[in-house]
């Protein structure tokens, strides 16, 4: 009579492996949750670089009023929730189009004179150029500066990103966004009377 064969993995070892898997999954989820929470209040690298270029150019101390960053996790969650909640189709389209968005608002005591705008413009160009972003629009007048940066590499409607900085008086606003323009283009084509639009160059 032959001895009974032992199972390849005894029950105790199976339970231990299962425990490790559950613990690892829990730890991973916890880490992911912590990362999401922390990153929600920090700007992405390009937007932060644009912001820092303004800080360097103007000097002094800037106070953060708000900084929010909705990345792929947050926007994905928003899309899932949008599927549950009864939203207008335009809102669903907008949520589907946005893959990430961030905004930072800062204030510094004492309005900045127009004389610092050229320095600020140069500082922003030096910060964004090595990152592969080029200035698409720059508008400066006595009271404000507005710059828009986009990636130099070939854009596709499915993957578009931009960074915008507006400096006005004591306030600085930096915005970053990335997403898929196709749904928005379809929506705009259906809603906007094109013949009333102009490409304005004065």
């Amino acid at each position, binding site marked *: 009579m032959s001895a009974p064969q032992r199972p390849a993995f005894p029950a105790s070892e199976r339970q231990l492996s299962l425990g490790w898997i559950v613990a690892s999954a829990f730890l991973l989820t916890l880490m992911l949750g912590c990362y999401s929470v922390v990153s929600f209040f920090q700007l992405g690298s390009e937007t932060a670089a644009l912001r820092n270029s303004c800080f360097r150019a103007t000097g002094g101390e800037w106070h953060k009023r708000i900084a929010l960053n909705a990345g792929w996790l947050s926007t994905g969650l928003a899309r899932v929730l949008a599927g549950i909640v009864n939203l207008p189709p335009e809102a669903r389209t907008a949520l589907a189009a946005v893959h990430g968005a961030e905004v930072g608002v800062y204030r510094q005591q004492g309005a900045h004179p127009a004389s610092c705008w050229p320095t600020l413009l140069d500082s922003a160009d030096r910060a964004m150029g090595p990152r592969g972003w*080029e200035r698409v629009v720059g508008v400066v007048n006595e009271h404000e500066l507005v710059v828009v940066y986009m990636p130099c590499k*070939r854009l596709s409607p499915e993957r578009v990103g931009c960074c915008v900085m507006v400096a006005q008086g004591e306030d600085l606003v930096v915005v970053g966004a990335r997403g898929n323009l196709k749904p928005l283009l379809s929506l705009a084509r259906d809603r906007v009377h094109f013949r009333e639009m102009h*490409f304005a*160059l004065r």
Partner: protein
Amino acid sequence: MRHSMPVSLATGLLSLSMLGHSAAENLPPGQVDFGKFSPPGGGGEFVEVNLGASLISLAASFVQKEEPDVAQLLNGLQRVHVNVIGVNDQNRTDLEKRSESLQQELTGKGWERIVTAQQQGQDVGVYLKTEANGTVQGLVVTVMDGKGQAVFVNVVGNIKPEQLATLGERLHIDPLKNISPATNKAQKTEKAEK
């Protein structure tokens, strides 16, 4: 051995500088480097728009359904560069010199001046770079308004002569709106007293 390292380094630096120089020179035929403009002191107006091919094609896809002819025009463009600088006493002389220098450079490089207009304090120049088959590779518009603004526009791409007026309409470049194909073949000069 003592001298080989500095010599190698100098040779390498020289090669890199020549490479950079040649890269800067290798702009498309219709593209012009206006140089760097800075916002005028005292808070004067400054606008710079620099649209590359990918962004222009995005805009073309937006209008494809409504106006396919405009979309076709836009798809032929590679770059649109616009500078608008407010003119004041501090920068007027410099801007006028740069405008004159640019006009001389364009003429020297074979650009065809199709419009020269001086009236009511405005100095307007329109220059075209054309291929042998008549296709416009590049367009430069310079406007010096002694009282207000200096405008420099460069449009790069494959533009058919009959599309120039449409381009002027869509991009609101007034000197182009009245351009006709016949104008491209002969220089049209208008000089009016103030």
